[in-house]
Each structure stands twice: as C-alpha cells, then as structure tokens.
C-alpha cells in the first residue's frame, strides 16, 4: 500500500516535471494567476492554456472525480500526494471554479447520470464557468426566504426575480440557483435547485462595487427567463436539501480550500520582510499568537479532510468556516498593522486584500449563523 503510494508519487512527479510549463511553476497565487476558464476566458499566455489542457486530459483538474465525468478517480491519499508534488514545484492550479468547488460536488451527489455527463466534463475542462445564485436582496442570513419565482409552464420554468452576491456573474456562462417553485409550502419546502444558461434571454447582471474597490460580486436579474425543467437538480421543491449540502461544502471550502487560509503568505515571512515590523513588541506578540492559531487551524483542516474520507463532516463544518474566516481576518488586520503607512496606498494591493477578507465572515453564512449552528446542532442548546 505504501509502496503503491510511493510509486504514485514518483510517477506524478515525473509527469508534472515533463508537462508543467515553466511559466506555470512560479507559485503565484494571487487573483491574477488564477485560471477561471469559461467561454469567454482569455488565457494570460499560451502556457496557461497548455497547462489546463494537459491537466484536464489527465483528469487532474478534478483529481478525485470519477473518470467517467472528467476526473481521475484518485483516492484522498493520492490526491494529497498530487497536491504536495504540485506545491513543491510551485505549480499553479490549472483551473479554479465554482463548478469544481460547488456545483460538481452537488451534481455528483444529487444529479442524474445524464446531468453528470452533460455538465461535469465541461467543468473539468474549464469550458463552462459557473456562478452561484443563492442570496437575494434583503434575505441576508435567512437563505431559505427565496423570493425568486420559477413558475411551471409545460416543460419549462419561467423565472422572475433577483439574486445578489453572485460571484463573477458578469463573467460566468451558467448559474446554479435556488428558486421558489411552491409559494404555498413552508419556506424550506417550496424551493428547487435549477441550472440556467446566462445567455438565456431575460438574464442580466450588474456588478457591485465593494469597499475594496473591486467588484467580484454582482446583482443578477431574471425577467421571464425560460429554462427547461430538465435542468433542475434533485426533486422539485426539495432544492433545500441540495442547498444545505452545498452550504456545508462551501463552508469547508471558504475555511481553507481554494488557497484561502493556507495559500496566504506565511506570517513569519510576511513580517520578516517588513522593515521594523517584528521589533515592535506588541505587534510581535500579536503575530506570535496568530502564528500559533494559524498552525493549529491548518492541522484542523487536515484532520477534517482526513475525517471527510469516511464520514460526513456535517454541521461541524460551521466551525471550520467560523474559525477559519475569523482567523483570516485577524491575519490581515495584523498584516496591515505591521506594514503601517506602506499599506495605506491603493497601489500596494495590501489594503485591497485586507478589505476583501472582511467579507469572509459574511459570505457563505455569517460567523453568527455558524455559531448558532454549532450551538444548536453540535452542542444541542435550545433555540
């Protein structure tokens, strides 16, 4: 068994050495280095395109997905080795997307074989870029209060309403969305989970400017949008099951996946690089405490990933989301303090990153909602 893994490691290393273009080995992790894919994607260079194609052909854009759907069917142990080998050579991720992180897992769990065949391979190849349509204006933490209507008309839904906080909706090809298909049912019971092509007439988007100056989110409007009922995932009016599954998944992802927590700059290096930073006793003490907690959080993410191999993490993912995002905010507050006046100019980029982290504890369920989930479902407190 260990031998097999050792062999896998050697093969993987050799393949990566042979196939990863040198431009893709710079370890870059910022927004600029991400390949999101999609119909309108413009590759930053030929190497980016080549790297995506080679990895997709190998099934390694989504290593643990079944081969039938564009993956490589790797075990968790193999996947870990692949990640380690990529990291040790500084290889960029060939593709990142909400299709990989969110829709893929939901389809693997709830989709029909036909749906999986139709949607998963284009995600794996980076051909279709997805966005997520959950939140609505005014709903906030009360995600189940979906107002966007999908009225049945023959084989179609006619969708009307508005979503908000749809990440990169202006750049996405398709959206997976929660819509209300039964207005008379209790609020969790009349929701369906449907897939909509963003080019369908009646879909429009408007970017939201954030305090960081960036606009990674949009408002998305649906005005008599007709979409086939076959594009529903899961049963009609049972979309909340899909949503809950995805929410748990999203929490795990935000807490540390996608390069979030662990992909950030290591604290020691970040501070050591700053003139005078660590000579300040108060800041140093804060940094030391932050490093301790960061290391423990990283181990916790590892532990939960180990656990996820055999059992559902379930509600405890709320802890990962809560603690991971609060820690990330703390790291960036600390970074701003250490960098002092140098970080107060837009051109440095630090401030943008810092302000971006403030959304960590809001998006995908606020810290307050996470704590309430832990309180009720993990600790069994009343309420």
């Amino acid at each position, binding site marked *: 068994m260990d031998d097999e893994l050792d062999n896998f490691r050697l093969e993987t290393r050799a393949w990566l050495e042979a196939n990863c273009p040198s431009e893709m080995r710079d370890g870059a992790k910022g927004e600029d280095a991400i390949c999101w894919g999609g119909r309108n994607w413009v590759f930053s260079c030929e190497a980016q395109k080549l790297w995506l194609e080679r990895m997709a052909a190998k099934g390694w854009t989504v290593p643990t997905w079944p081969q039938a759907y564009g993956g490589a069917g790797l075990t968790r142990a193999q996947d870990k080795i692949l990640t380690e080998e990529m990291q040790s050579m500084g290889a960029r991720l060939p593709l990142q997307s909400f299709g990989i992180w969110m829709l893929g897992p939901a389809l693997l769990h709830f989709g029909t074989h036909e749906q999986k065949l139709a949607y998963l391979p284009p995600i794996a190849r980076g051909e279709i870029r997805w966005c997520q349509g959950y*939140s609505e204006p005014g709903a*906030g*933490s*009360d995600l189940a209060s979906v107002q966007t209507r999908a009225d049945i008309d023959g084989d179609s839904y006619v969708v009307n309403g508005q979503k*908000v*906080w749809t990440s990169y909706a202006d750049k996405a090809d398709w959206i997976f969305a929660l819509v209300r298909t039964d207005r008379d049912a209790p609020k969790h019971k009349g929701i369906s989970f449907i897939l909509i092509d963003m080019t369908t007439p009646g879909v429009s988007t408007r970017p*939201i*400017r*954030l*305090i960081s*100056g960036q606009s990674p989110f949009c408002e998305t409007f649906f005005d008599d949008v007709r979409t086939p009922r076959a594009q529903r995932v899961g049963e009609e009016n049972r979309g909340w099951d899909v949503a809950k599954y995805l929410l748990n998944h999203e929490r795990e992802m935000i807490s540390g996946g996608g390069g979030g927590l662990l992909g950030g700059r290591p604290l020691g290096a970040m501070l050591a690089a*700053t*003139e*005078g*930073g660590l000579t*300040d*006793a*108060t*800041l140093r003490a804060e940094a030391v405490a932050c490093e301790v907690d960061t290391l423990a959080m990283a181990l916790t993410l590892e532990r939960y990933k180990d656990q996820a191999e055999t059992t559902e993490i379930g509600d405890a993912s709320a802890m990962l989301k809560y603690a991971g995002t609060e820690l990330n*905010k703390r790291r960036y*507050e600390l970074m*701003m*303090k250490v*960098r*002092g*006046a*140098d*970080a*107060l*100019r*837009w*051109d440095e980029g630090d*401030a943008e990153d810092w*302000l971006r982290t*403030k*959304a960590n*504890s*809001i*998006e995908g369920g*606020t*810290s*307050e909602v996470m*704590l309430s989930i832990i309180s009720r479902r993990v600790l069994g407190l009343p309420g």
Partner: protein
Amino acid sequence: MSLLPTEDEIMLADTARGFLDAAAPVSHLRGLRDAGMTHDPALWAEMVAMGWAGVLVPEAQGGADMGHAAAGVLAREMGQTLVSSPFLSTAVMAATALRQVANTRANDALRQIADGTRIYALALDEAAKHDPAKTELQAEADGNGFRLTGAKTFVVDGGFADRVLVLARTTGGLTLFDLPTDRKGITRKTQAMIDSRDAVDLDFDAVSATGDDVLGHVDDAMTVLAPALHAGQAALAAEMTGLAARALAMTVGYLKERKQFGVPIGAFQALQHRAAHLWSETEITSSAILNAGRVLDSGDDATLAVSLAKARATQTAQLAVQEGVQMHGGIGMTDAFDMGFYMKRARVSAEWLGDYSYHAERVARLRGF
C-alpha cells in the same frame, strides 16, 4: 479639573454638528473621491469663517484661542462624518508649533493660519511607522544656511499645503524647518490613499534653507515639535472617537431597522451584547479624550494623557468599524454604503502620528514598566 464637557464645549459641539451635518456629511467626502479630489477649499473657507482655523491661535494674531479641549470637540465632530480638511495639520499641529516660537515670522504665520491664507502640512515620517527619532533626512550646513536632502512619506495634506514643517537631522540633533512647498528641490508625489484624503511623498534634493527657515532653534526641534505632536495626537484621537461613535450609531440604527427571520436583528442577544460592549469601549475612550484635552490646556506634561487617548482611540475605532461591517453583513461590504469609508479612515488614523504600539509603549514607560 472636571472631566465633564463645559457648557461652552457642549454649545461648540452642537454648532459644529449642525454645520458639518449640512456642509460635510460623508456624502461630501464620497463626492470628492468620485471627482478625483481629496479636499474642498470652499469647505475649509467656511470652517475658517467660523473661526475653527484659529482655534489655537492667540487672539492677538486673530485667533479664537479656545484651547485643546475645544479643538478636540471640533475634531470629534469632524470625525463623525469623516470630514477631509487641513484642520489637524494646520489649525492644530502647525499652530501649536508656531505658538512655541514667539517671533514675528511665527506670529505672521499664525495670523495667516487663522485667516485661512496658509495651509500647513507636517513632513515627519520616513518609514512605515511614525518615529521622529529615526529621522534621517539630512540638513547639512551650507554657508549661513542648510541644504536638505532626503525623503519624507505619509505627509498628510501635503498635496495642497502652502507650507511644510520638515523634521531634519542636523549635526547636533534634530531641527524643524518651516518651508514653502514650492521651494526649489522639493518634489511632491501624490499617493492614492485608501481613505480618499490627501497624503504625499516628498523628495528633498539639496533644498536650500536659511536660518530664518528654522522654527525654534537648531538641534532643538522637539521643544517646538513635541507640543505640536501632542496636540495633534490628542485631536486625532478625538476625531477617531467621533468616527467610532458614528459607526456605532449607524450600527445600532441598523440593528433596530434590519429584519431577519422575522425580527429586528437587534433582538438577537449576541449582537446586543457586542453592541453594548462596543458602547462601553467608546465611553471609556471618551474619558481619555476629555482628559487629554484638559491636561493639554493645563500646561502640565501631557505625554501620558495624550498617548493614553491615542492608544485607546485607535483600538476603539478599529473595533467599531470591524463590528460595524460585520453587523451590517453584505451591505457593509459595499461601496454604496458608508461603513467602508469609516473602516478605511480608521485604518489610516490608526497609523498617523503613532500607532497603538507606539503610544501604548509610551504609556508603559511613563508608568514605570
């Protein structure tokens, strides 16, 4: 020495509030930013007309000479709506520095501050952290005068100031120069600051200065500069407290109005307790602010009182904006909503004139740690 505001101070605050809510709400700063501007000369002219530019200028030089507690009252009100003006750099710091020097040039300068014809900036810092002792900009002796070479950063209001107080290293210590910003050899580089206010980097390339350009005495900058810094730090702390109070008020207002799960989110006890904790922090910080103003006005050494105020104000303002954004949820993250302006201003103010560590450490040393 009572820590309660006097009736005069309460009246001054009310007047300021009324004026600023009308003339300089946050939307005014937003408008400046969207127009690519960092300050509004017309607004400053109105503030000058109300006597605020002369708040620390002696009556003999046309000022109102109201003292540091009064300056703090004004700064606090300005902080509430994030007013962008040269009040701190010019009316508080430069005026206090100039008052330490009882000569004709200084008196003329004070008169010009009071009547709004002069705007000052302070060029002190050279690195990411405030620390006047680490000044490296050289003022070499050159005949009867000096030649200044080096660079300054984070010069707030430096982009539109007429004059700049420059801290430089001379043979026997530090010397403070009072120079026109258009003096030959001075280059300004505008920086896009996150709080949408003005701050520049200044480059000094063999800039000539005469003995008359020295404010106070050669090798003795701190006699003039220390009181100015204390005054500025106290007023900045007051401003940050106004910022925190308004951020809290916005948040409490939102908690009452915003509904989730069918009830106002302010009915959720976890948020209630956090808001109550934040209010407690603002109350405690207010005491330190009031105290700093009183001690400055008493003429006693104000180092401890001022550093206590700035340290507390820095922590409180940051807590207020962090809780403010979080409790507003998604809307708090949008540029369309004002809370982001508060968060960015709090960050800049946290660094300006010494961060929490700088001031807490000064408190500790004075308390015998």
